């Protein structure tokens, strides 16, 4: 199965490429998808599919180095691994001293000479499978590059080698191992390192009613959470009795139609025909079990059951919350699952409440780097999607770090936020030392709603440099301690909706309540494809939230209570009252952009505008565009296997938000959602209307409907928000109030004059 690198994790992967120490703790998503492709494609996958950016990899300087992360699942055995390397080196390199080494997990696999006479390199390199271990493996390219036998400038520009990431490929042949699973193995069996994963079938004994829908949703979330960043497609099928009962725990289930691993979901009574009698007899409450798949020992089937629907839900919750390799048993009867009450907006690595957080709380561990071009030290954190950032709000970093002695005066730590340079910390203490609580401020507005990456990139220089300088880098040391603090100021949760981008970032506004109790999933059809679509979507939302949403309400009818709602269904089955206020009406009305990119052509801004632009630092000029509405077309155009996602204010639930996912058929809806959760689509959801076509790799989006406010904001901030948009209104209000005050005060002053100076005659000269 081919899978592209999740773009949202690209910066993360980039950090991994530059930071081998991070590999042990922070695997990258893109790495996980690559081996599957590599295995599937006869020639392997191009290396570019492992990278966040396109283009060649450049190994610069006397010691050039780049690294990849290769995930290998514990349930797979690698049979063959080959790298085809296509590279070009500088013609200025000295052949006698220059070479390119390929290392796997630190062991050199091959050395290639870098010759100016043959600057084009093409090499097929067989990677020793013995060196590949379950988990994340490191593939490194290390170049030693020189241009002279004498002393040289290690940063000379002619010292380079480029790896062609398009023509370079990686091929991995793997096979699944037979398993005898316990519940403790779930973390390995459903892991992001596997390349046979990404799909799960949930089997129910009959068409699931709301209670079972909810339990299935929780199961889907639990599976998706184990895959972390890997998209999970959940497929629902109805249980079919096996033609002939075999052995094992689920002898009565026909597994021929099941693709991959499966979950058997239902209450004990309903599952009894499919379970072995002794297994069914062991169901004495909420029941969670895992068994090898009948007829295929490489796969597993998880049984989520109970005597009642509530117990089934409890078992599903236990499945969703379980994350440690425990218990080492195949079955478990569960009395209760007591999850803590989590605050709103809670999520892994997210800071939502004002206050100071240690870097260690956000998963950062103390790290040291050495040398001139060191790896970036990365801090990942996430902000709520509806964070309203006033212009004068800053996130403050209080850095604890140590720096080496005798470094060049121009040594610095550059701080990048989401890839953009923000601040710098000069390392100008010649005698080195420990700095505590070094304060750095970054405007809150520069942070994105949702995930953010702060990269601390040390650039350490020696005091002496140049070709023949006594060059040593042992003193170029920098350590960033995890006791450093990041402080979030008082923020408000206020934004404008609809905004599918915020939905994609963190499931906003559906996941504000950490247990999902403000979310309802409304299915317009009872078919398995629609159910599959709903469960797949919920798995994705749980991944964005990094925890299961266990109190979501599911149903085939309009939610009775006041909840944000996700509506999934075939366009022809969508309830009319739910489409009131929808920006598009499939089969009746749709819109087209009147102007591409919404840009209004303007004439030459002129001297004044140009000067103003210069004075204001180019913040805003007369070149600002105004929005032009779309062209509205009424017609019977339907969705041809396309997925339409639209968000608008729920017509039936006060201030709640409704997001509709629809297509022209149930299977198209199911496939569309499966496509949607892939990063290339999911990360590009925007506006209030997004359209995904099976034959396109991009998302078409529009912002056409009315916008509405969401969230609470203080009066000051609300006024600030409005007046920032409308300074003239602010001026008018101020002038009116001042005029009113002036009138009242003038009256009071006159009154004072009469009382205090009643008989005073005044000169008539003007005041």
């Amino acid at each position: 199965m081919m899978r592209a690198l999740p773009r949202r994790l690209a910066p993360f992967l980039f950090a991994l490429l530059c930071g081998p120490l991070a590999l042990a703790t922070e695997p990258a998503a893109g790495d996980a998808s690559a081996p599957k492709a590599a295995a599937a494609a006869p020639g392997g996958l191009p290396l570019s599919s492992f990278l966040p950016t396109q283009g060649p990899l450049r190994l610069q300087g006397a010691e050039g180095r780049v690294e990849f992360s290769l995930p290998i699942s514990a349930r797979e055995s690698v049979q063959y691994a080959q790298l085809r390397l296509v590279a070009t080196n500088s013609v200025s390199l000295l052949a006698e001293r220059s070479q390119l080494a390929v290392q796997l997990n630190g062991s050199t696999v091959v050395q290639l000479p870098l010759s100016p006479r043959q600057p084009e390199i093409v090499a097929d390199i067989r990677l020793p499978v013995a060196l590949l271990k379950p988990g994340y493996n490191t593939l490194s390219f290390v170049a030693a590059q020189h241009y002279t036998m004498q002393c040289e400038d290690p940063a000379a520009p002619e010292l380079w080698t480029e790896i062609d990431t398009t023509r370079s490929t990686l091929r991995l042949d793997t096979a699944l191992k037979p398993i005898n699973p316990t519940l403790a193995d779930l973390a390995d069996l459903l892991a992001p390192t596997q390349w046979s994963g990404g799909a799960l079938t949930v089997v129910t004994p009959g068409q699931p009613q709301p209670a079972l829908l909810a339990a299935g949703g929780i199961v889907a979330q639990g599976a998706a959470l184990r895959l972390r960043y890997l998209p999970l497609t959940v497929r629902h099928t109805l249980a079919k009795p096996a033609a002939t009962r075999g052995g094992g725990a689920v002898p009565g289930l026909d597994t021929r139609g099941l693709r991959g691993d499966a979950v058997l979901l239902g209450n004990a009574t309903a599952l009894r025909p499919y379970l072995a009698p002794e297994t069914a007899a062991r169901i004495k409450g909420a029941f969670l079990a895992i068994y090898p798949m009948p007829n295929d020992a490489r796969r597993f089937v998880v049984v989520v059951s109970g005597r009642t629907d509530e117990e089934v839900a409890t078992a599903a919750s236990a499945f969703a919350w379980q994350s440690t390799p425990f218990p080492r048993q195949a079955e478990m009867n569960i009395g209760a699952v007591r999850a803590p009450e989590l605050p709103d907006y809670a999520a892994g690595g997210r800071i939502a409440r004002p206050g100071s957080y240690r870097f260690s709380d956000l998963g950062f561990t103390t790290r040291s780097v050495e040398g001139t071009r060191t790896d970036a030290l990365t801090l990942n954190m996430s902000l709520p999607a509806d964070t309203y950032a006033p212009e004068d709000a800053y996130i403050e970093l209080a850095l604890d770090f140590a720096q080496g002695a005798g470094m060049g005066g121009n040594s610095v730590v550059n701080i990048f936020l989401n890839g953009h340079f923000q601040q710098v910390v000069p390392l100008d203490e010649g005698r080195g030392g420990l700095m505590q609580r070094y304060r750095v401020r970054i405007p809150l507005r520069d942070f994105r709603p949702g995930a953010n990456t702060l990269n601390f990139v040390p650039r350490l220089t020696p005091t002496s440099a140049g070709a023949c300088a006594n060059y040593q880098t042992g003193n170029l040391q920098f350590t960033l301690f995890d006791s450093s603090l990041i402080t979030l100021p008082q923020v408000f949760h206020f934004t404008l909706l609809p905004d599918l981008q915020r939905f994609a970032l963190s499931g906003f506004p559906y996941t504000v309540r950490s247990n999902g109790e403000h979310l309802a999933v409304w299915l317009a059809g009872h078919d398995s494809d629609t159910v599959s679509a709903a469960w797949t979507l919920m798995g994705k939302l749980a991944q964005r939230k990094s925890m299961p949403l266990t109190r979501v309400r599911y149903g085939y009818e309009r939610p009775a209570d006041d909840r944000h709602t996700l509506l999934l269904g075939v366009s022809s089955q969508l309830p009319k009252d739910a489409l009131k206020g929808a920006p598009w009406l499939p089969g009746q009305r749709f819109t087209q952009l009147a102007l591409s990119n919404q840009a209004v052509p303007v004439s030459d801004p002129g001297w004044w505008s140009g000067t103003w632009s210069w004075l204001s630092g180019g913040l805003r000029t007369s070149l600002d565009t105004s929005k032009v509405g779309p062209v509205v077309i009424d017609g019977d155009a339907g969705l041809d296997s396309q997925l339409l996602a639209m968000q608008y204010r729920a017509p039936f639930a006060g201030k709640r938000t409704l997001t509709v996912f629809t297509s022209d058929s149930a299977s198209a809806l199911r496939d569309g959602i499966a496509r949607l959760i892939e990063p290339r689509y999911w990360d590009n959801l925007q506006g209030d209307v997004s359209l995904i076509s099976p034959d396109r790799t991009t998302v078409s989006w529009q912002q056409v409907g009315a916008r509405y406010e969401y969230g609470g904001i203080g009066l000051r901030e609300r006024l600030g928000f409005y007046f920032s948009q409308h300074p003239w209104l602010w001026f008018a209000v101020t002038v009116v109030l001042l005029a009113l005050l002036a009138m009242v005060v003038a009256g009071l002053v006159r009154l004072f004059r009469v009382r205090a100076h009643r008989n005073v005659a005044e000169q008539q000269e003007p005041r």
Partner: protein
Amino acid sequence: MRLSARPSLAVLAALTVTATLLLLVSIPIDTLSQLVFACTCLVTLFVLRKLGHLPRSRLFFMMLAAFLTLRYLYWRTTSTIEYHGVADLIAALLLYCAELYGIVVALLGMFVNVRPLRRQPVPLPADSAAWPTVDVFIPTYNESPDLLEITLRAARNLRYPQDKLRVYLLDDGGTAQKRAQNDTLKAIAANVRRMQLTEMAKRHGAHYISRERNEHAKAGNINAALKVSRGDLVAIFDADHVPTVDFLEQTVGFFVADPKMFLVQTPHFFINPDPIEKNLQMFGEMPSENEMFYSVIQHGLDFWNAAFFCGSAAVLRRSCLEEVGGIQGGSITEDAETALALHARGYNSAYLGVPMISGLQPETFSGFVTQRVRWAQGMVQIFLMQNPLLLKGLTLPQRLCYFSSTFFWFFGFARVMFLLAPLAYLIGGLHIYDATFTEFLAYTVPHVIGVMLVSDYLFGKVRWAFVSELYELLQSFFSLPGIIQVLKNPRAPTFNVTPKGEQLDEDFISRLAGPFYLVYLLVLAGFGFAAWRYATVPLERGVVLITLAWNCFNLLLLNAALGALFERRQRRGTPRMPADLPAELVLYQHGEPLHCQIDDLSGTGARLVLTPGVMPRVRTSAKAFLAVHNPALSRFSHLRVQIQNERRLDDGSVALGVAFTEVQPELLAEVVALAHGDSSRWQSYRRARARQIGIGASLVRLGWLGARYAFDHSRAIVDAALGYLRDNLLHYGRLLGRHLRRQGVELITWISGAPR
């Protein structure tokens, strides 16, 4: 609904709107929107100013500017102070405090001047029997008898029933303590002074009073006199403050009309330039520095019943003074302190803006500084020891007014900070103001322009823009140490008498110029550092440009300051003031009266202009009679004059400089009444001088004058240096020549073998 019927509702409405506006002040707005807003506000202010209907929109105008200022203050407080290190933070906080001072003073100034009260005199009752008795006190310490005689005579000239008027000369220079001091020469001088002044007082029908010991300076002197006099009212004139004849007619009526009136203060009007006006040659062209206080602020204070006693040119009710134990002596500004004490007891004051005394200002910069440091120290003493915000008995407006009057004197701190702040960044590299260029445009510039517009509107006619800054700068280096001294020990300062009537025979550089040279050099160095920073720190270019502009402004002020520190000579002891009086001149042995016009006038002489052809070709004598209608006395005065010089003017007319001669006590009364007795003359002069030239023109004028006289100053330094070199070269050259000559002679003698 009439406001007067429901004032509490109006107050409630005002408070509600104010609270709403304060909310608007604090809302977080994008910088660009703030910029749009602030620019629109400024355009509104300019339009209102241009339309010329400001009196009607006075409050709105001030409030709009105040809104910009408060907006700036909020932003400045919440967004611009960051920690970059201890030194940076200290410098940043000092600058912030200086700005805070400026903002508080500006806002209080708006409050004080919300509605100036320009009173007309209250007429006295028709029956003079109902008029109160008045004692006129002229306290003196070391002023010359010539100076005192003018004032004494003018006091005796006051139009008031003689049986109700007694004039006292309160001499602290002839006390028993002075006469018995160990220094024999000084003791003799004190005895001679006492005899002279006693005789002079007797000659003019006044009373000489002295006391045993010189305790509590001027306040003690007056209090001692209070014990030996008994008039209902006490009029106080400094030794050099010559009253006009109508002084009591115009002021006493207030006391008759209001039994709770304890003070009627009138402006101090000066007939000579202060040293800064003199050295920058701006006297007569520009409103005098004290005009702002006496033409606007005192009227504003008067509206809130907070006009205070300024030490002279005022009338006080004896009973009120006695109630608080006389003139207060807790501070060295006894006048303001006394007014504060009586206001706190619920008494009223009035300010009559008619100039009715003519006084002298210090002639030298050091004298000026002595006077101003005393004021600063005294007002800070009041601020510390009797803080108006805490003193019982005052109304809220009175508290704010007195707070404004005393707090103002901390300007030395603010001015020094404003001078050094750009240097702290340019030279020291300290980060004292965290803002971007756009923020600076959006917040700081509108605030500064708004404050300047309001200041120009309130005071533009009587104080040109940036003149305050110049005066404050010149005083700041001396008032700041004085204030620090008070802060350390509030009771430490002592009363220093302001030197008056000094004559300067030649130009010279003030001995107080030293600190200004140092700062001037630093400011010049700041330009070099600015160029360096601009070139080497591209990211900070916006900040460098802002600081550079600030430094330029400081340089402009310092130029003017250096110009003012180059003391110009001042030969005339009694300054002449413009006059326009018809007169007749009768030359001795000629007989025919010659029609002429008195062009200027002082207590010792005048300039006469005779139309072409009137003056005889051959003048028979330098002596003459001058007959002139004396407006103060409403009769003709006949004065003997001596023609000192004669000059033919371009239009053929003749200008004669004449000196009054043979001035006997009776004639002196005529001369003093003619030269100093007419208040309408001072009024017209003051009115003619009050003109508004605008902010830009004022800046250009100040820049030009500053550059010009700073150049004179620097030329004087160069001349002095060259003179020093020349003198030394000549001296040592002569010595060398003498030495060589002697050696040569010895050599020749040795060669010739002549005996030595």
